């Protein structure tokens, strides 16, 4: 199996196995594994613990100037703790030990707080995931960037101001003077992340640590931020990239270290680790990436699903005779804002057929969720109408709609905020079935057990609250809740977007199985093209409230016609396996 990064999709005809990291000069770099003496950063036997047992165990790696090492793994694998230990920010309760930990020949072992402060910002820059919360919302971006200069240089106020503007220009801000005076809440996700990067590179640190720098971003913005990191690396900065996204990693890292349970289980050049993985865990991670896997193939290695009967075959897709279950015609929705009405959805039409999945892709703010809300009958369209099983759905009173609500269920991105935190799993599920009626304890327990079994969860979690579940378990409970009233249609709004890749794989597999088993129809919303491609029969691409292109999945992904679709495909980093 060969894995490589390609900027474009050429129609599903892979060009063959490539041994190297790629042949594109901008995207690859030749250096092999750095040996100890010319490394910028060298870590040997790093172990970090918080009282009970180490969470990072005997981790060793090195990074050369102008090189990017990616630390990949799932949440809780110890990536972030490793990064923070390198800056002395693992926390007061952390026990950090290492055989060697050196940056540019200077040891980072056993530094006192004062010495650590000397390292931070000056020798190592640090970029966190979500700039909305990683920049102080009460202070302007200019002041945040200025902090590093104020603390560590003798520049005058005017010189610092000039340097802040220069930095903002360097990271590609359009209007530095305006941006310097704005706060993180006033900036878009991409600009915010750029500002955060500017604050991290203010003192030209030779090493930059980026902890999930693009995770919260849309594909287009993600590509821009990656380009920025890539150009910093090209200018000689060493880059430690922490990510759970293998597609991002394959795009900019020369070296990859895979972490699992606090240990590095495999490391080496990106092409060989991702192209020819040796360790089981790495193989599983790669298998779980949805893009490149045809519709219907399993993503998760170990099935948590408890059904032992064979999966029924999927209804033949491609036929046009399937019964339409949900039809939207010329939907429009406007919201009033202080700058006049904002058209969130503009003349959108689509048809969802029985047993099929319609994928809705687009970047944030493109109107996907508003469409979902109208499909669910939770928002009233300003124009156009929605029909459910051929009968009116949008233009009727809530009283009439309520009777038919069980036909259509919903699964949202963040189940934690869509569950009442004070209810147990059993209460959540019973609530969904009973809809206000009292249900006897015996029947309640049986129903809960049946629903939990359906989504592959043990019945023992019925008494737990949503806060005491893992992300994957929570999303399974959300799916069970959606299925409790036995709907025919499920609207899935970013159902797996907040999950680690292998958990995401399990959830997607589960949705797929349930669709076959119950003949469900999905309206599947995601910004992740790989996920949409894996899940959908038909795909509609949304941009600024309009559907710009709509076709069957293969056609959209192999022969996109609209420039915006082409642009989206190009911007989204993807792992292609052949």
């Amino acid at each position, binding site marked *: 199996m060969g894995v490589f990064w390609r900027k474009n999709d050429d129609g599903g005809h892979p060009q063959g196995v490539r041994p190297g990291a790629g042949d594109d000069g901008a995207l690859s770099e030749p250096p092999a594994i750095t040996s100890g003496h010319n490394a910028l950063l060298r870590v040997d036997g790093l172990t970090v613990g918080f009282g009970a047992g180490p969470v990072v165990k005997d981790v060793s790696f090195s990074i050369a100037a102008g090189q990017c090492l990616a630390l990949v793994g799932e949440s809780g694998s110890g990536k972030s703790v490793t990064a923070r230990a390198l800056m002395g920010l693992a926390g007061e309760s952390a026990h950090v030990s290492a055989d060697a930990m050196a940056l540019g020949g200077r040891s980072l072992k056993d530094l006192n707080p004062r010495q650590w402060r000397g390292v931070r910002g000056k020798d190592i820059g640090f970029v966190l995931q979500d700039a909305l919360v990683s920049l102080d919302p009460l202070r302007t971006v200019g002041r945040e960037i200025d902090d590093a200069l104020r603390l560590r240089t003798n520049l005058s106020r005017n010189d610092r101001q000039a340097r802040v503007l220069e930095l903002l220009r360097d990271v590609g801000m359009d209007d530095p003077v305006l941006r310097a005076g*704005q706060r993180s809440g006033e900036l878009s996700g991409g600009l915010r992340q750029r500002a955060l990067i500017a*604050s991290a590179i203010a003192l030209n640190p030779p090493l930059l640590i980026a902890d999930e720098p693009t995770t919260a971003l849309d594909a287009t913005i993600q590509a821009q931020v990656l380009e920025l990191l890539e150009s910093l690396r090209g200018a000689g900065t060493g880059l430690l990239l922490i990510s759970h996204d293998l597609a991002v990693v394959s795009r900019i890292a020369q070296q990859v270290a895979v972490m699992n349970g606090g240990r590095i289980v495999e490391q080496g050049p990106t092409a060989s680790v991702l192209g020819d993985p040796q360790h089981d865990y790495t193989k599983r991670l790669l298998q779980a990436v949805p893009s490149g896997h045809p519709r219907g193939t399993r993503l998760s290695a170990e099935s948590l699903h408890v059904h032992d009967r064979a999966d029924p075959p999927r209804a033949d897709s491609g036929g046009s005779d399937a019964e339409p279950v949900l039809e939207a015609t010329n939907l429009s929705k406007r919201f009033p804002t202080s700058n006049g009405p904002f058209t969130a959805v503009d003349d959108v039409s689509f048809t969802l057929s029985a047993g099929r999945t319609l994928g809705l892709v687009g970047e944030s703010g493109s109107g996907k969720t508003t469409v979902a809300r109208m499909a669910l009958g939770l928002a009233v369209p300003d124009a156009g109408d929605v029909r459910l099983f051929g009968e009116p759905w949008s233009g009727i009173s809530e009283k009439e709609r309520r009777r038919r609500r069980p036909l259509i269920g919903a699964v949202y991105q963040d189940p934690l905020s869509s569950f009442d935190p004070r209810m147990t799993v059993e209460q959540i599920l019973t609530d969904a079935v009973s809809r206000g009626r009292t249900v006897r304890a015996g029947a309640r327990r049986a129903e809960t057990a049946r629903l939990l079994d359906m989504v592959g969860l043990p019945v023992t979690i019925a008494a737990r609250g949503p806060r005491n579940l893992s992300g994957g378990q929570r999303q399974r409970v959300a799916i069970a809740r959606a299925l409790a009233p036995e709907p025919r249609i499920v609207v899935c709004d970013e159902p797996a977007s907040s999950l680690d890749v292998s958990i995401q794989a399990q959830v997607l597999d589960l949705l797929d199985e349930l669709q076959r088993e119950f003949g469900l129809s999905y309206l599947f919303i995601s910004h992740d093209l790989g996920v949409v491609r894996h899940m959908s029969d038909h795909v509609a691409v949304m941009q600024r409230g309009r559907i710009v292109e709509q076709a069957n999945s293969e056609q959209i992904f192999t022969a996109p016609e609209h420039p915006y679709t082409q642009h989206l495909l190009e911007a989204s980093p993807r792992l292609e396996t052949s």
Partner: protein
Amino acid sequence: MTRPAGIGGRLAAAARWLLAKALGAAFVLWAVTTLIFFGIRMIPGDPAEAILGGPGSQASAEALAQVRAEYGLDQPLVVQYFAQLGRLVQGDLGNSYSLRMPVSSLLGEQLPATLTLALLSLVLAWVVALGLATWSTLSGRSASLVSSGLEIVGAAVPHFWLASVLILLFSINLGWLPPVNTGSAEGLILPVVTLALPLAGFLGQVMRESMLTATTSPFALSARARSETEGGVLFRHSLRHAAIPGIALSGWAFGSLISGAVVVETIFARPGLGRTLLNAVTLRDIPLVTGVALVSALAYVLVMALSDLAERIADPRVRGS
């Protein structure tokens, strides 16, 4: 992304804000007047009798009738109501029945004492609350537990109990401070502390919480990664985050201080609106009750507007919305 508004847009927004506040204030004052006017007449007893010195005065029927005619109390209630509204609009609060003086001059004498007491208490409450929040943020978990305990006790303690304990301790046992008002600054200490501590408990709880959230937030981590010191994180980031809920609560807090002043002024025998109100209610002195209530309501509305303004200055996110 929001477009930054021009100067003109900002002025227009400020004008809209002021207008909304003024209309709201007018409504509140009208509602207070109306509620008191009708509410006080539901209490059994005859205002004319109250004017003549209360039930003990054994006033003759002629005297009562004369007083009723003089004060317009023989008119239908609605006529009296509109007559009073008319006078209030002109700024005439009427004469006190019991003290035979214009209500406005009585209030003028009493208001400064209560305002001083309330403002000093507010300042002290802020200092104590911020102190506890900072201490528990800087000194870790045990400090946090101690502060949290102190805050809960403080917030739960009633004014009259706290006043008694403070008097027992500092006046009777230690003899450091006077137990009642002497007109000196020393006499202010115990009343101010009595009013401030329960409020400090309330404020401290929210401030400590948001300060702790700010110190452990990703932006504080980012600041440390830029080599910011712990003190810098506190002063440049956390303090402001802690102050915002405190500012938002301060308008409400000021109202609670004025009502707390009724008890505290009585216990410490201090002059002020609170004691005046208590006397006026006991004597069914309708103009004085109305006057005190209106002045308190006005003060409350003004302080609410100020705290709203302060919050807008401290928190750019509120300004944007």
